């Protein structure tokens, strides 16, 4: 049996109500809110969040591959998946790949992973989809798009949801596109895009799949349909005969917005969180055609190690401080030119210290057992030289020992909260506090580590492990 052996989810902390956008542009707005990545988040950092969530309680050495699906890569040339793999501290002798460009990329990645597992060439393959698309200001997409990520581990041991069948249709249908060098999306009249494109292509693909399987739609406990908007979502469900009550999986459009390649995988994770053994799930993922999957939940779902998934991340949220803050987060408004020289990042240093910077390794002295970050060749405490082991600190928690809040720092979101954190299992960590409310930052506050972008010196995304107030209290 091959299928999903684990899942993880991620929704950024900040939400912006559609009313907020509508008020700013003096236009009517739909209901609900959208998830907005923090200034230091992007598709890679959110991908790391979902992967780390999926890997809770698992042995990271058992991961044999990672496929990263996104339409908002942080590099156009240079792999994004390798960054996710490094931050997640995966082995280096694995396959990594970016699968992008299409809203259907997530299921394409699932297909590739599934085939590898089926063929026996890889045992456990992670598929992560993450999206942080930047729509043009005052566009329809600005109302609908949201940010988020989800991850699935595919394998053949302890499968929690067997993938029974996979059907794929390709279609050269232009609806939303963006060429290199173009910052924002282009699209066509929505009546054409939805009626001739989405509704027909997705419907026909799903119908053909069901006919092929010889299984009526009523056999499925949940139906996950990727949809550009609520109305189209309901209409596709109606045409497929899906009961909009219990059977149709919530689109997340009201709570997250459309998270691009990650959207339907986030819905699937939400469906799996509520699933019972024996449930069948239909998953249709639209974009340049349509992929349709049939899944069957197994008894092993009861043994799954708890993760934060979609539920806890959806419940944990904070309104963004206004539309203008959103513009700043996404770099949509230009600031004053910096009178200081540009920052330089030495790639040689990044390479030499890759384990420490990307994988968050500190050292533990073998003599006195003290944990130290950054890695120290000569122990801070007992001065023993070159007798230490590396320990990953990225999953540790700690308490703020002291902090400051710099109102003048070079950061998109001021104040820049500097923290000295004493880790609960030893070691002291000096970092920036993100996803914080400046009003409530305090000595003794409990924090956890999170992979974020620090700056873009030397024209690269300089990532680091920051700290944040513990996002979900109690467990996972």
């Amino acid at each position, binding site marked *: 049996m091959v299928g999903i052996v684990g899942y993880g989810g991620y929704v950024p902390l900040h939400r912006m109500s559609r009313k907020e956008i509508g008020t700013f542009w003096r236009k009517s707005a739909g209901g609900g809110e959208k998830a907005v990545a923090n200034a230091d988040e992007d598709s890679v950092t959110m991908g790391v969040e979902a992967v780390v969530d999926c890997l809770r309680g698992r042995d990271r050495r058992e991961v044999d591959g990672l496929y990263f699906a996104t339409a908002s890569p942080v590099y156009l040339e240079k792999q994004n998946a390798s960054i996710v793999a490094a931050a997640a501290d995966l082995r280096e002798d694995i396959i990594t790949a970016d699968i992008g460009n299409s809203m259907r990329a997530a299921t394409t990645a699932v297909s590739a992973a599934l085939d590898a597992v089926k063929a026996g060439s890889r045992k456990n393959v992670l598929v992560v989809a993450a999206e942080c698309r930047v729509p043009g200001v005052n566009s329809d997409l600005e109302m609908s798009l949201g940010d988020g990520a989800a991850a699935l581990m595919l394998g053949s041991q302890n499968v929690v949801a067997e993938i029974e069948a996979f059907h794929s249709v390709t279609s050269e249908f232009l609806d939303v596109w963006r060429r290199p060098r173009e910052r924002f999306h282009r699209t066509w009249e929505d009546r054409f895009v939805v009626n001739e494109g989405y509704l027909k292509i997705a419907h026909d693909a799903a119908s053909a799949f069901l006919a092929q399987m010889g299984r009526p739609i009523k056999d499925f406990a949940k139906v996950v349909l990727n949809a550009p908007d609520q109305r189209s979502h309901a209409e596709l469900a109606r045409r497929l005969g899906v009961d909009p009550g219990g059977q149709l999986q919530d689109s997340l459009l009201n709570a997250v917005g459309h998270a691009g390649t990650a959207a339907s995988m986030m819905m699937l994770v939400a469906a799996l969180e509520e699933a019972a053994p024996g449930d069948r799930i239909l998953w249709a993922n639209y974009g340049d055609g349509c992929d349709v999957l049939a899944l069957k939940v197994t008894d092993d779902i009861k043994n799954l190690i708890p993760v934060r998934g979609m539920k806890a991340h959806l419940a944990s949220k904070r309104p963004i401080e206004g539309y203008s803050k959103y513009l700043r987060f996404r770099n949509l408004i230009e600031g004053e030119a910096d009178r200081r020289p540009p920052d330089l990042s030495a790639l040689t240093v990044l390479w030499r210290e890759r384990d420490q910077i990307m994988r968050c390794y500190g050292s533990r002295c073998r003599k006195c057992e003290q944990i130290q970050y950054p890695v120290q060749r000569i122990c801070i405490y007992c001065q023993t030289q070159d007798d230490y082991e590396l320990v990953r600190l990225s999953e540790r928690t700690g308490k703020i020992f002291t902090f400051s*809040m710099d109102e003048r720092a070079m950061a998109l979101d001021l104040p820049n909260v500097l923290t*000295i954190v004493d880790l609960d299992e030893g070691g002291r960590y000096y970092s920036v506090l993100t996803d914080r409310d400046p009003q409530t930052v305090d000595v003794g506050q409990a924090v956890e580590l999170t992979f974020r972008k620090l700056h873009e010196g030397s024209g690269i995304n300089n990532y680091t492990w920051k700290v944040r107030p513990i996002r979900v209290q109690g467990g996972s």
Partner: protein
Amino acid sequence: MESMKDKIAIVGMGCSAFGERWDTDKDDLIIEATREALEDAGIELKDVQAAWVGTSYNETGVSLSAPLKLQYIPVTRVENACGTAADALRNAAFAVAAKAYDVALVVGYEKLKDAGVGGTPANKGVEKWHPTYGYGVAAPGRYALAATRYFARYGLTREEGKRLIGQISVKSHYNGARNPKAHMQREVTLEQVVNAPMIAWPLGLYDACGVTDGAAAAIICRKEDAKRFRSDYITLKGIAVSCGPGMGKSNVNYDFTHWDETERAAAQAYEMAGIKNPRKELQVVECHDCFSIAELIACESLGIWEKGGAKAEIEAGTNTMHGDLPVNLSGGLKSFGHPIGASGLREVYEIYKQLQGKAQHPERQLKNIDFGLAHNQGGHPGRFVCSITILGRP
């Protein structure tokens, strides 16, 4: 190991006017301070056999020899960030004590106000190229870590903490307003200080020192030669430097409410000077107060205040111009200003003038003083190099 006590005499000192010296460059500042020092010592530039120059932002001894047209004598550049100048003096003192030279010039200077920004110019060098460490972090945010921790450790509310350190700034501005060469010659109220724009919580604008152009200079010789220059020369009683391993941000044992390097350097300097009870034996202290919290912790780490005793001392006003141990009578880095590479020598200049009875304003002249201490440090909490210079009459 031999004590340096009373081996070296300072026979001349100079200090440029400190401030936003838009119309002067670093050469003008060097010439201004050096000229005063030479005249004070009654010598000419050709009498100088070797020189040490402290600057954090300029390179090589040529930055001194060029403006002064020094004729091929050795010039050593010393750099210890904000603790640069005191260490330049220390190195010159060793060379003269070793009789390698008889007369040496020490100059510390910095020209900061050409940077186009309100704060200090960006540092350069290899550490700055690190992709992550220290990015977007500046001195206010680093020192503020100590303030937050001090408040937490001693149970001060945010409001109480702000008002406590704010009183240090009020005192420094009062002193600076009475010092003709000070950068900021204006008194401020506690309300102004606590309500000033925030720089890095809990440090506001008036918790931070001036970003200043300036230079200071000294002429030194061995004590036995000093009488040839003047009768009221001043001698070095204790001189010490401590450079910490710099691991406070990684070491769980560091508490951010004391300066280890200051304690180590002070212990060495007190021993050399024969000072048993610094609070009783010192009559004036110039300490490194780049921020109000820095002065508070320096006073506790120098042992002139008890640990946690700042509140009682400040409320009793013991550190004021008329208190029993004035701290930063000059106005300090806060109000006199802080040209990075000059501050250490500028502190020594204040003690030198006080010991000679030549403070420029009668109100600020202390009576009957034997010992003064200058405390100068570079770096930031958890990562300091600290210089202590104790001066006295021979």
